[in-house]
């Protein structure tokens, strides 16, 4: 069983929901990312999605675009991100780490070299935003052979036929994008999400994480009620943008955001 499956099964056994933060690696500076990861674990998160910065993040809104620009300005590369995960693993062997980004940095490194290096670094899952399962035929077996969970997106526009096919290609969890749009937009409709996630649950046994539009304890609880986990990104990245120089204040601010979400999710526990 993969580390991701283990964590999600344990949570399910406890009737709890996963809290999954996203930050862009290398933002505000490559030296701070590992410290921020540990701070988020201390604040009670279950899985970390670590964004690999890309020059042209087409699926992201301005908040994560700017985070990519900050990280790239400091020379963050895919290899650099893997080094951060290795460093994190020196003192944390339990919290799963999912790399989330775009395909081209992986293409540039080479599929096999990347898959090997990701396992070696202690990465658990790979979510490549611009790689639908149709184009993953070459890379998916490389992940499977090494026990890396490929995580794919589902969207409001995804047909039932595709939901089944995508779930067949996924392990760990599937990531449901809560609305048509880019990251950081504030247009989540909880009733629609509830209906769609319930429907997805009928089509696959995989846990369903929901991301896009979750900004506080209230939205986290509302979405947590109908899913297996919530993914929180832009609000954290925005907080990083606002506290780039004072890292102590930044960790406190991230903790202050995550703590109420954790409490709200745990208050749902049956």
């Amino acid at each position: 069983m993969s580390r991701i499956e283990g964590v999600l099964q344990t949570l399910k056994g406890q009737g709890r929901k996963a809290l999954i933060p996203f930050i862009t690696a290398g933002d505000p500076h490559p030296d701070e990312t590992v410290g921020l990861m540990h701070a988020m674990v201390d604040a009670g998160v279950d899985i970390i999605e670590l964004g690999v910065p890309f020059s042209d993040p087409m699926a992201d809104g301005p908040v994560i675009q700017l985070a990519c620009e900050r990280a790239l300005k400091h020379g963050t590369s895919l290899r650099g991100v893997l080094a951060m995960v290795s460093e994190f693993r020196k003192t944390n062997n339990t919290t799963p780490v999912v790399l989330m980004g775009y395909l081209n940095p992986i293409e540039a490194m080479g599929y096999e070299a990347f898959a090997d290096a990701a396992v070696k670094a202690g990465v658990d899952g790979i979510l490549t935003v611009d790689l639908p399962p149709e184009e993953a035929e070459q890379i998916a077996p490389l992940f499977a052979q090494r026990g890396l969970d490929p995580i794919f997106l589902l969207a409001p526009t995804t047909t039932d036929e595709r939901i089944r096919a995508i779930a067949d290609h996924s392990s760990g969890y599937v990531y449901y994008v809560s609305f048509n749009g880019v990251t950081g937009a504030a247009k989540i409709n909880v009733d629609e999400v509830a209906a769609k996630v319930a429907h997805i649950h009928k089509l696959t046994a995989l846990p369903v994480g929901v991301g896009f539009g979750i900004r506080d304890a209230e939205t986290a609880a509302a979405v947590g009620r109908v899913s297996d986990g919530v993914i929180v990104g832009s609000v954290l990245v925005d907080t990083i943008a606002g506290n780039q120089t004072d890292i102590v204040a930044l960790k406190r601010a991230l903790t202050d955001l995550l703590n109420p979400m954790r409490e709200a999710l745990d208050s749902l526990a049956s």
Partner: protein
Amino acid sequence: MSVKLTEEMLTALPDAQGHFGAFGGRFVSETLMDSLMTLEREYLRLKKDPEFQATFDKDLADYVGRPSPLYFAERLTRETGGAQIWLKREDLNHTGAHKVNNTIGQALLASFLGKKRIIAETGAGQHGVATATVCARLGLECHVFMGAEDVQRQSLNVYRMKLLGAKVHAVESGSRTLKDAMNDAMRDWVTNVDDTFYIIGTVAGPHPYPLLVRDFQSVIGRETRNQSLEKAGKLPDALVACVGGGSNAIGMFYPFLTDESVQLYGVEAGGLGIETGQHAAPLCAGRPGVLHGNRTYLMEDENGQIAGTHSVSAGLDYPGVGPEHSWLKDIGRANYVSVTDDEALQAFRMLTLVEGIMPALETAHAVAYAVKLAATMDKDQMVVINISGRGDKDIHTIAQLDGIEL
């Protein structure tokens, strides 16, 4: 290495997933997949629909003014002292460039799909103008995304789009040029996918765009083929077209791909010189990668980050290229070369003075290479340059380089 192409090989491409050999495909976030698959299905159906094709042909004739002439540039030929140089006059199309062939086709598709809101990206502004034009004609809401740097250097086209009722969105992110305009158009599309049709201006992007843009632009090569046989009694020996994304080049090349005797030359923007790194020539100096929904030759750094590009011409200032060109390069069917900003500017002046035809700066790249090429060929040979657009939009850039305030 060159492969003899047959009709059977060509009709098999792109494959069902949009691949041209190792290139192309559909690399987008899940939200867009359903729309792309619907578009592909509907297009493949309409491609065989006589009513759709008749409407398209009629619009090209009566609204665009096709066929565009194939003109023998007698004085340019004499000055060059080599092969006969002929010009395919896409600059005479309504709106002044080849771009309108495609926007007519895609707007027609949008109407058949019942989409009322149109978005487009633009570099030089020619595609933006061509999109705004067809939207005005059909009463469709039009949003054009344009890099903030391009908004400045192509202010005339920005104003034309506004007069045509389009909203122009200046894109401030990244390098503030065409690639960033395409990023923002994709972001708008993913947000408004239910009611919006994205008219992509070039043969790049996710499947089926490279296919349908190529089909709509192939009228250029079909006409050129017939006109060559009619006027010169033979097929040309060489075709020359500029390549940014590559839509005018593929439109010219495609109907000639199985004619082995016809040499194909795509001319990329060499900017300040390939050796300086300040250029926009992915086929000459890039490597395969994935951007904007397709696998193709790209300009990128060793970590897979997209590199900044430079060209005096906004329409060629793009780090990628259509996947079918990448395939044609790798199988050796087409040659891809580059000319510098300076060579293009010289060619602009030459064509203007010698033939009284002012080409777009993009087109001037093709002119520059064709003149060099023709000089090495025999007098009984024939070179056709695709004059993809007219140069009025570039007069401010030229004047500025001359130190003149207009």
